């Protein structure tokens, strides 16, 4: 089964307190990782924010992004939803439209979801979307 990764889960590989190396080593070999194109914007935005706040150097930021670029994460088009459809996904779960993108992709691809975001986890549970580590 494929895994949809969101920006929070990805950033946790870079900056999170839990060491992800063993998990990544196994998962990158055995599973296919997916992300909507939005994921690229969110991840780079967060890394650049840390750079602007002098929490990482530009060299470190580039290296982090290079590591992610080298990972076999399949960046795919946003799920095909009408504007009204997007709102309909968002409303009942009080999710941002950004989060809906990850959720809808997981449904569309029948994939598991990997996120640190509790609201997104809760919505995924309600929709019976399998979650990694759940």
């Amino acid at each position: 089964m494929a895994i949809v990764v969101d920006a929070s889960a990805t950033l946790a590989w870079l900056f999170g307190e839990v060491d992800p190396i063993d998990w990544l080593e196994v998962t990158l070999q055995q599973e296919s990782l997916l992300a909507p194109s939005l994921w690229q914007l969110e991840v780079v935005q967060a890394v650049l924010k840390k750079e602007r706040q002098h929490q990482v150097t530009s060299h470190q930021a580039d290296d982090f992004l290079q590591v992610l670029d080298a990972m076999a994460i399949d960046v795919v088009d946003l799920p095909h939803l009408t504007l009204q459809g997007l709102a309909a996904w968002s409303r009942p779960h009080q999710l941002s439209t950004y989060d809906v993108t990850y959720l809808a992709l997981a449904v569309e691809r029948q994939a598991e979801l990997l996120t640190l975001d509790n609201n997104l986890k809760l919505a995924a549970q309600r929709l019976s979307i399998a979650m990694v580590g759940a």
Partner: protein
Amino acid sequence: MQITIPKEMEQVVRAKALEAGFQSVEEYVLTLVTNGSGNERVTAMTRNEELKRLQELRREVQLMSSDEIVSLVAEGRD
């Protein structure tokens, strides 16, 4: 069994084996014969190198809690 590579091909095959991350020509040729390609090995090596680099980078920076990471993403959306 011993693999014999024609003299005129030896340099080319050796270079390709090194490029694909193999230390010995024999191992490279056997992988080609059994798997059809040495690319998987290259991918695995690249992945290991990148993960090693990630481990080093993580040691250089201050780590964040899950809540801090979720907030960082949310700030990017504002």
